[in-house]
């Protein structure tokens, strides 16, 4: 397995730390003029999503993590696994378990394209596009006349996600939602 020395550390590099795949976020050289050099590194553990700060002795190395991001179309779930297919024309399919899709579940729509992070060839996590378009399946009836006040109400979308929407939104409308903030963006004309 390839490994990376501290002088190759840069943000975005995927490495193994204490058995877990991590992505390097920041790398800072600290060195007293006459003293030993160290690299102070911020990493995100890709399994737990938790951020770590760890210092390495300059010159030491970490094993590379076999982690790659691939664009895949979401196909369906059988209840136990969520199935994705590569968009590169190979039709190759991958099954993600509940843990890998836990963060993306409320934005998961069939035929939409997601970034699937593979670790040792198996889905580790799934990242939604920045914006998704989903249909409103439940919300209180629209209240005309309140639009000027900019009030909001909760609306349940087809995936189960609940977002705050303007009062004029009605069931059956398709909304554009920002998956990073979970915020309503606008109505989509169908």
């Amino acid at each position: 397995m390839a490994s990376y020395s501290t002088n190759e550390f840069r943000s975005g590099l995927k490495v193994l730390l204490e058995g877990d795949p991590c992505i390097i976020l920041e790398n800072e050289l600290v060195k007293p003029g006459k003293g030993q050099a160290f690299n102070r590194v911020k990493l995100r553990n890709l399994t737990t999503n938790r951020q770590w700060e760890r210092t390495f002795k300059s010159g030491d190395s970490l094993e590379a993590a076999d982690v790659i991001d691939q664009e895949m179309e979401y196909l369906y779930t059988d209840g136990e696994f969520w199935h994705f297919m590569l968009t590169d024309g190979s039709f190759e399919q991958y099954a993600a378990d509940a843990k890998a899709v836990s963060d993306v579940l409320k934005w998961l729509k069939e035929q939409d394209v997601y970034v699937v992070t593979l670790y040792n060839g198996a889905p580790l996590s799934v990242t939604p596009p920045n914006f998704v378009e989903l249909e409103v399946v439940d919300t209180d009836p629209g209240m005309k006349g309140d639009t000027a006040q900019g009030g909001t109400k909760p609306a349940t979308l087809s995936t189960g996600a609940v977002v705050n929407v303007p009062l004029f939104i009605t069931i059956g409308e398709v909304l554009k939602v920002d998956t990073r903030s979970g915020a309503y963006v606008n109505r989509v004309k169908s």
Partner: protein
Amino acid sequence: MSSTPDNSWKPTASLAALESRARQSSYVRDFFAARNVLEVETPALASHGANDLNIDSLRVDLAPLPQVDTLKGWLQSSPEYHMKRLLAAGAGPIYQMARAFRNGERGVRHNPEFSLLEWYRPGFDDLDLMAEVAALVCGWLELPMPERLTYREAFRRYSGVDAFTASDSALAQKCERWVGTELAARLSRDECLDLLLSHEIEPALRQLPPTFLCHYPASQAALAKTSVSEDVTVAHRFELYVEGLELCNGYWELTDATEQRRRFELDNQSRQAAGKPDMGIDERLLAAMESGLPACAGVALGLDRLLMLKLGTRDIAEVLSFPVERA
């Protein structure tokens, strides 16, 4: 076809920063002219590099030349060895603004090629020289005069450990929260101290007015005299920290050639153990010391970092015309 515009031909320093650098150079020259310290130049390329374990000089391959017995040269990590030969030759007080080179060092406070102001004062001890450094730095930065803090007190206060008397394993344990147990167990005593210095002491110094850290452990004496203070052997070595940035490294200089040879041999052993090239022994330096290096104090001060402080920047690239990746 479109392509991303490549801006890498452009300097990373603003024109205002370049002008400040020129003013800083004039300030330094005026400072030393008023004090009758002679400006000198010494080679950047020489047959020997520094012996320090943690300084990697840049190697240069030389074409064969008549009367040059080595084909291997080193870009100097500081002009120290040559300036000491000038002192032994009777040059009196001297300074220079030199380009220095240290391999493998690049970060927001490091560039492998950088500018050092180095000066030597015959007849001064470390206290006298600290006063002169304070006048130069605080005069330029318009800051209050620095406080002095011993290395031992700094560690007691900010790391809760006695850097001189704590056991090796106690120091390693202090490092575990930063590096994990596996690496902590592999660190030498001095590496542990360096780690705590950069992770616990320096951040604390950021909150303080300019501070001289002084009286380093004897194991980190490098080329400084040692003496016994409060029952422990301390090196007459000092560093100035301004806003937590390490600005200079000074010594009440060791003048004993025999002791210097012993330290060089120890350095070379440590280098070999760490898989680094043996730097040999610069016999011309030792011969100069044997012929008589006057009692003196000397200091090297990072001019790029001094300018960073003057301009309030956090990234050395903002004071360099072209950092290494654009050079």
